[in-house]
């Protein structure tokens, strides 16, 4: 019974994580501007990965593996938003037609 519960939780969360990843991949091609695409790309790195690893940790053999998953999530949740922030800053600095793409608050 417990095994089945773990399996179902893992499966549902894995499918959810893969769905988020797919949506973010689709969004990278769907959106036109760098700032929108950056948001979608970062979503796959943070939310998709978190849900996937949460699902995997339900069927992990021992607690050490769960801690390792947690550390991976911590690392990527620090690294990925910072990378997005740098991309955004570079885009704002370099793009001359930023006003055409979006509303810029001065």
């Amino acid at each position, binding site marked *: 019974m417990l095994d089945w519960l773990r399996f179902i939780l893992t499966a549902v969360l894995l499918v959810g994580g893969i769905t988020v990843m797919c949506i973010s991949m689709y969004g990278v091609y769907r959106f036109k501007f760098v700032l929108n695409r950056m948001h979608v790309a970062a979503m796959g790195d943070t939310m998709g990965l978190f849900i996937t690893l949460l699902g995997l940790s339900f069927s992990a053999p021992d607690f050490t593996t769960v801690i390792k998953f947690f550390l991976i999530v911590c*690392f990527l949740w*620090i690294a990925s938003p910072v990378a997005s*922030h*740098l991309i955004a*800053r*570079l885009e704002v*600095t*370099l793009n001359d037609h930023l006003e055409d793409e979006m509303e810029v608050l001065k």
Partner: protein
Amino acid sequence: MNSSKPSLKQKFTAWLENASMLDDAMEKDLAKGSDLKAQENEKAVYEAWEQRQKNRHDTAVQEEHALYERIHHWTMTGGAKTATILYRLFCIFVCLAVTAFMLMMVLDMPAYGNANSPVNNEVSARYIEKGMEETGAVNIVAGMILDYRAFDTLGESTVLFIAACAVLTLLRIDLNRHGLPTEELIAAEADDRHHEPKDDVILQRSAALLVPIILLFGIYIIFNGHLSPGGGFSGGAIIGAGMILYLNAFGFKATGKIMNFRVFTVITFCSLMFYGLAKTYSFFTGANHLHSIISPGIPGNIFSAGLILPLNIAVGMVVACTMYVFYALFRKGGM
């Protein structure tokens, strides 16, 4: 003596007289004044030439304009369509051809799990059965690449070193011969991160948090290479990435204290030299059935597996330095 060869003083006076003669001639020319008529003539010739040049230039511009208009018109209407259709057809054809070719190759391969396939020969069986006993490494891959086939790995590390040297020769911007920075170097310094955000606080804080963890993790992977998956190449790559992150956050001034071309050369040379010497000793004693001071130890301990741990460290240092030097050279042409 004097008659055959002029003395130094004679030469000097002769030279002085010559010079004064030239001066006289020049003064005479200046005093006479230039011919006005000749000057006017020259002016007319020059104007005619200028007019001809201008005409030629105008015709060329007109022709080019017409050509551009024609091509532009064609690409905007018929050309674009044709090119797109051709391109797509070509893409589909290439994809299908490559897929078919790959599938044909797969058909020729031995069946999966076939005991008689050439993959399952006595070499891999021996690695699996006796690898731990002979090398002392729990990680069979580490035992293979750093013990049985160690000279292959030395070649790989040397390839990295040679690649770094080649990039250094091509991209490094040197000081000039007086030891001063050249214009190119100044331009490179100014251009470096010209558009990029400098001293970004968010990046600096997160780098201060992450870099020690990344470096520690890389060292762990190198030191644990004979016990778990990993080793010199992957651990060195992680350390190099950590150093690059630090460089991005804090700039060349911060990393230049520990890493410059001299450090790079010394570390890489010492690592490769140690690797070659240690492995030569090990192979020599092994091939001649001599007593070797290197023992496999107890498999599973951190100080075991003989030479694998020091060789992993050597390879890791080479890889980390090479990654960092590549990044620095491609970014600025120096460190």
